[in-house]
């Protein structure tokens, strides 16, 4: 059978199976959402804590960078003895992957705020906290948002691999399909799983683009 033969079988499959696939997509989305939420809180915290401290920032970037170099298969597997199977090890591993882009952009964004603007804020009597919340973060926000978008795109893809630890989402049909590759059913599963992951990634990126624009000041 050629690739085209396989493809021609897909529409019928999708027509039959779309409610299940949609359910898996929602699961996938939920995993991504929780992951990015946690990762943003942690990475933003790390960035805020270290952006004015050279060695602190370097440590954060080195460690979060190191997580990204661990092959995803291995990282998910390593967590089985600690967290068992299912959603928990999935989210833990994904959060580790999502940290670097957000932390790096938080640090870069805060550091690129014009020192004159910060100094004038200080000279006007804004406290350290007010300076951060009212001046530095709003100015760094577009850069931080860009980091969140990168992490989100990446996590939508990697989340599929979580199926090896029985994680929720679209990884299930992809792995089932790969184990039966060579058959029409195997192709259907793997192809439609991948297709939905890709569509989800594009949709999320679009949504985040709109959110980013809406939450960024028109003055920037």
């Amino acid at each position, binding site marked *: 059978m050629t690739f085209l033969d396989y493809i021609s079988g897909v529409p019928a499959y999708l027509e039959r199976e779309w409610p299940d696939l949609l359910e898996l997509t929602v699961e996938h989305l939920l995993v991504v959402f929780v992951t990015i939420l946690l990762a943003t809180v942690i990475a933003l915290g790390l960035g805020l804590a270290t952006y004015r401290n050279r060695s602190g920032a370097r440590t954060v970037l080195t460690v979060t960078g190191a997580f990204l170099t661990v092959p995803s298969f291995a990282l998910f597997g390593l967590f089985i003895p600690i967290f068992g199977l299912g959603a928990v090890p999935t989210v833990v591993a994904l959060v580790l992957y999502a940290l670097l882009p957000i932390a790096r952009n938080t640090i870069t964004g805060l550091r690129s705020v014009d020192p*004159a603007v910060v*100094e*004038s804020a200080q000279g006007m*009597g804004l406290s350290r906290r007010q300076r951060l919340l009212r001046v530095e973060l709003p*100015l760094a926000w577009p850069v931080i948002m860009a980091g969140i978008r990168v992490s989100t795109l990446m996590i939508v893809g990697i989340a599929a691999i979580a199926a090896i630890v029985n994680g929720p989402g679209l990884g299930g049909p992809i792995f089932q399909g790969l184990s039966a590759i060579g058959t029409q059913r195997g192709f259907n599963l793997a192809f439609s799983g991948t297709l939905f992951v890709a569509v989800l990634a594009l949709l999320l990126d679009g949504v985040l683009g709109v959110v980013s624009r809406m939450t960024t000041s028109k003055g920037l």
Partner: protein
Amino acid sequence: MTEHEQGTMAAAAPIRLESLTKRYPGQAEPAVDNLTMDIPAGEIVVLVGPSGCGKTTSLKMINRIIEPTSGRIFIDGEDVTDVNADQLRRRIGYVIQQIGLFPHMTIAENIGMVPGLLGWSRSRISQRVDELLDLVGMEPSAYRKRYPKELSGGQRQRVGVARAMSADPPVLLMDEPFGAIDPITRERLQNEFLRLQNDLRKTIVFVTHDIDEAIKLGDRIAILTKGSKIAQYDTPEAILTTPADDFVADFIGSGASLKRLSLSRVRDVELNQWAVGRLDDDRAHLRRTLADGDHASLLLLDENQRPVRWVTGHDLARSGESLDRVGLPAAATVEPHATLHDALNEMVTSRVGCAIVVDDQRRYQGIVDMRTVMRAIDEMREGVQARDRDTAGRPTEAV
């Protein structure tokens, strides 16, 4: 007035710096070494000196952007060296060279920031914003909702000044506020700034490296050397007339006498008179006037007393030509608010060697010539020397 006093100090407040010192770790020499200085309420005091002399560090210690290593700071008699720095800064206006407007906020939000921190009501803030935009010559309805990126450099600078004055602080600190602006706009902003200060009478500490700007803006100038040591602290007239030492003389530069001329205005000097006649007088009468005077030429005025031509006896003898066609045109006029520097410039341009002074209707008032200028310089020198004789013997209060 009383409305804005809440949470701020009086309209203007004197500042006293006492043995202010800043040492940075790892540096042998202190950046600011034992600076003691009194800044009178309602005056513009300019700190000027070569780069690296510590003038900016000195300024930034007043609102404790830089914390002094030792020494005390008093504002309006109150020791503010150890009070809460954020609270202190809300009572001190601060303008820096880069201005540092918040790019993500509108002009109204930028100006309303400090009043907001001080807990003013929304309506009072918005009223204050409009008032300040008016004050700096920007139409509130046009600019309130704009963002800093939509403004020109000069407009940003105006907003920076408005923002610094938002809570009506008695003290304003300005660190080279006109430094990054093109010369023409700078000149205009300096004039506007002087006009504002004329009404507001804030205590202003102003840092610049430009001695001409210092002379133009300062009620007093402190010329600083390395470590913020005061080489001379006096009025611009006194500094230009009697520089304290070679350093000050060098710093003022070779044009000191010319710069001094920028400090006097034509209206402040006694004008000389020139022999004048009217265009419609008969020539015999004009010739007599010329012969009676000790000038080689006669200034002819029209029926509204406006200067028209310079004519000599030879010109008057040319009976064929009408009087408004002979001689030289009476150009080179100055108005009373012009400086002697401007008058000198006209004088040099004029072929007669003097500048004609006219009022705002262009009516003849008198003339300024080289003797007028020399007399003004002498008077300035004598004035400063007389003052120095008066104060000699008395303990100088760090001034």
